[in-house]
């Protein structure tokens, strides 16, 4: 079945992964800017990264018939130094007219520090100023619940962002309701050990009807699976769910949310 992986870091994946994803039915992806596993030593490193996301990766994906889109930001893991983070933030507006840029992401929190929160607020203001979609990373493991609450408060306090144009990613059983109850979209990341397995994602889809929900692989340089989305499709099918529901979660919902950018193409 055709699908969209709305969160995957292809910079860390091989061209063979693009081929396998296409063979499995992938027609479009979105790639948020993220932590590359090391701290960049200068803002110029981010300039090069943003060029890669807006020039090289779309060409590489296109070789396999996959539409590539991206989100720009400085991720929270590198946001502890506000001076450095603001140098990177200042680069972003010059890339916003690139045709595959959908919005600001993945912004958010990592360890829930004050500096991370300050830089998150400045990203939110940037998105509001340019009327952009927002993709939000929520923290890992023991930090997720607290971080999700802080993030939701920060967005509310920003005041002008429409919750329907913000997706809160990496939700799990203890955070999904907080996100959906406030009118935001929620993403479930399918990881082998942390975040959601395909089975747990299917449980959450059953509980919340699949409304304002999507699934993604968040495939990157760590333990992750670029074919996680089709594997979740198989999980849902194995439980007897309808093809309509499976398509809604893995294709229609991403199209509905991302289509608000005016730039998303399948």
């Amino acid at each position, binding site marked *: 079945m055709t699908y969209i992986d709305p969160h995957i870091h292809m910079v860390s994946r091989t061209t063979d992964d693009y081929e396998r994803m296409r063979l499995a039915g992938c027609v479009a992806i979105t790639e948020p800017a993220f*932590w590359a596993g090391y701290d960049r030593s200068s803002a110029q490193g981010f300039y090069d990264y943003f060029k890669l996301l807006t020039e090289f990766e779309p060409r590489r994906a296109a070789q396999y018939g996959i539409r590539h889109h991206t989100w720009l930001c400085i991720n929270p*893991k590198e946001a*502890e130094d506000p001076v450095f983070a603001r140098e990177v933030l200042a680069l972003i507006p010059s890339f916003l007219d690139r045709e595959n840029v959908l919005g600001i992401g993945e912004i958010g929190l*990592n*360890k*829930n*520090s*004050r*500096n*991370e*929160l300050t830089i998150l607020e400045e990203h939110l203001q940037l998105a509001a100023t340019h009327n952009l979609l927002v993709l939000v990373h929520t*923290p*890992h*493991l*023991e*930090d*997720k*619940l*607290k971080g999700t*609450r*802080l993030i939701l408060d920060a967005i509310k306090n920003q005041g002008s962002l429409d919750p329907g144009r913000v997706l809160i990613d990496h939700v*799990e*059983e*203890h955070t999904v*309701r907080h996100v*959906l*109850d406030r009118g935001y979209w929620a993403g479930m990341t399918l990881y082998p050990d942390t975040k959601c397995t395909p*089975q*747990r994602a*299917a*449980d959450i889809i*059953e*509980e*919340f*009807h699949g*409304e304002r929900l999507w699934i993604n692989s968040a495939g990157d340089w760590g333990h992750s699976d670029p074919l996680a989305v089709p594997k979740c499709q198989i999980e849902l099918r*194995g*439980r*007897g*769910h309808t093809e309509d529901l499976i398509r809604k979660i893995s294709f229609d919902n991403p199209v509905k949310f991302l289509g608000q950018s005016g730039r998303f193409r399948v």
Partner: protein
Amino acid sequence: MSPYDCGLMATPPIDRTAVVDRYFMEHRAKLIDLAAYLDRVERATPRGSASHDFRHDALVQAIAILLDGKPQRARRVLEHFSDPTSEPIAKAPMKGATGAYPGPPKDAAKGGAR
């Protein structure tokens, strides 16, 4: 009431026996893995004077949630492992996460921020 609280899809399309058929062997294996992990920790020599590890202690405590007969076990286990505080910390001490909340740091106990 939230729009998804009407219960229409709260149950999977397959019946309980089919759920067990589909997932029993996988979770039987995971349960034995957990039992073997507990044995492995118990057999290992403590490091220095440390007799407890907050991560392991949190995991053992979470097992009680599995057996309390109440619903929403996954949510409650995740909450059990979570940082219960609400204020931002002063500075990120590292990039990673440990999987369980270690409790307030010593400086916070003295009145400082984490």
